[in-house]
């Protein structure tokens, strides 16, 4: 039997170069925007409560609105991302600790209500007690709202997300703080914006440090964070974060213009970071080498270990 081979050889490393895992079907911009809005809203709730406690009414109002509006828009983005949006209430059908999306829905739902109530009360001046109480509730839920989204991405087989599960929550906490601080700097008069600037700067520091550690530790699987479009997004975000954070610290106290510009840079950076991380993940899902190589490495190491113990 003689036969001419008609097709290219299947590469020994993969099945005709096809991806092994499925690329996420999550939509852009919905999901990366949701990551950003959750961070902004969650950290803003903390900022608002601090402002309330220390009697900074302008800062409190701006941060309460950021928390309420961020959560509301985030909910819209999340529902819009569903491929069967009319069934969004099924998200609250069960509570499963193994599913960050389930846990997150149970955080987002009460947070949205509470932060909306707090924002409405703060803007209208109506029912101040109820508003304040709602604000306290939102403050408790805010930090987990800002960080659970890291587990949402990490609890998948997507190599660049899963392997980053230790650092991503800190990147997201920092990114949420820079966004909340930055947003408040945009709309708060200088004499009340001090905490917003400090939150922005501290968030920037945490975010930059965590992102640095992430790419350093991940090796091959971290590659997509530095390449192509996600790489450009991450680099731009890094520069904006660093410049915004420094400017706010150095000159933000004296100049409203600097404060506003630094705030805008940091809000933009937070958006770009989320898109960068999202797209780095999808890129790592598309290329089978990020799935196959580390797994092979694991098998090799295990075989070597076995050989060593047997040899003894």
């Amino acid at each position: 039997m003689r036969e001419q081979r008609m097709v290219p050889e299947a590469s020994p490393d993969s099945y005709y170069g096809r991806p092994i895992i499925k690329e996420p079907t999550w939509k852009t911009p919905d999901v990366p925007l949701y990551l950003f809005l959750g961070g902004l809203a969650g950290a803003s709730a903390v900022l608002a409560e601090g402002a309330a406690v220390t009697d900074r009414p302008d800062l409190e109002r701006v941060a309460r609105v950021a928390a309420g509006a961020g959560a509301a828009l985030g909910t819209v983005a999340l529902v819009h991302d569903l491929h069967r949006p009319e069934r969004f209430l099924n998200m609250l059908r069960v509570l499963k600790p193994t599913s960050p999306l389930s846990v997150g829905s149970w955080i987002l739902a009460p947070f949205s209500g509470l932060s909306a109530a707090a924002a409405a009360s703060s803007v209208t001046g109506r029912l101040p007690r109820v508003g304040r109480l709602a604000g306290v509730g939102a403050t408790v839920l805010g930090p987990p709202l800002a960080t659970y989204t890291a587990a949402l991405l990490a609890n998948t087989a997507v190599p660049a997300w899963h392997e980053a599960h230790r650092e991503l929550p800190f990147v997201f906490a920092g990114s949420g703080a820079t966004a909340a601080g930055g947003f408040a700097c945009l709309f708060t008069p200088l004499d009340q914006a001090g905490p917003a600037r400090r939150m922005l700067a501290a968030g920037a520091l945490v975010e930059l440090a965590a992102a640095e550690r992430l790419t350093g530790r991940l090796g091959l699987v971290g590659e997509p964070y530095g390449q192509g479009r996600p790489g450009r997004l991450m680099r731009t975000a890094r520069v904006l974060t660093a410049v915004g954070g420094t400017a706010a610290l150095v000159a933000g106290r004296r100049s409203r213009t600097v404060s506003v510009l630094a705030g805008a840079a940091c809000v933009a950076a937070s958006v770009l970071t989320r898109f960068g991380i999202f797209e780095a993940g999808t890129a790592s899902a598309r290329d089978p080498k990020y799935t196959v190589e580390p797994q092979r490495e694991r098998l090799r190491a295990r075989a070597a270990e076995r050989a060593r113990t047997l040899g003894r």
Partner: protein
Amino acid sequence: MSNSLSGPLHDVAGDAGHEAHPPRMGFFTDTSVCIGCKACEVACKEWNLVPEDGLSLTGMSYDNTGALGASTWRHVAFVEQPIGRASRSTDLGMPGMGPPPDATPPAGPGQETESGEGGVRWLMSSDVCKHCTHAACLDVCPTGSLFRTEFGTVVVQEDICNGCGYCVPACPYGVIDIRPGDGRAFKCTLCYDRIGEGMTPACAQACPTESIQYGELDELRERAGRRLGELQEQGVDGARLYGADPDDGVGGDGAFFLLLDEPEVYGLPPDPVVTTRDLGSMWRHVGAAAGALVGLGVASFLGRRR
């Protein structure tokens, strides 16, 4: 409960809350006898009313199905390899084909053919959802749409799925997907409707070479072990079981395979791990980061007034 998230777990259905339940059922796909006829793909489509999955040519091989997906629950991979990489030609003992067992086997090709630049070896393999012991798709599903049946299999309830898509990137094998135009997630059900009636799943029923075998998982694992021994005795050096080990990263597959080459050659991950194995670490880091955010917030209000 111990080992609910990873590690060996014998009673999957019991762990999921089924009290009195039938034994765990599964598939053993012996790719050494697969002839690539795609009867399984067709039978599955017909029985489960799975719609067409795009009538396109991949242009890369004789395989125009490409991969498992929302509308492809069995996928026959066609791997074309130059001989040399492969083990030597062997009579793989395909049931129902060739001479009776007591006749001397004729000399000649097994799965190999010759061409101008040398020989070609064909590897065919019918892939399917693995019905993992620790199924990431099920773990991450926020609606409870994905559930563990009394047979230990993993099934989507289409009346509950809201198309959130979380199961899609969670599966370490790239099995489940959202069906475009419909919006819900679909995958192999191990013919939940048929096995409930004591019938064999459509693909296994249709397979002419018994490459797809259906039965109690414990028994299938024994059978697979014997088959592997046979092949190794015959000198088929690439032969190995895939997904049969309860100690692997997903606690063993309910649908496992006998392969003739590395898993990645067939488009399978070489050492898949269920993502929820790291769940504890993930939540701990999320908690610590949330704490850091609180601390950072408090610190922002210390110090000077403006």
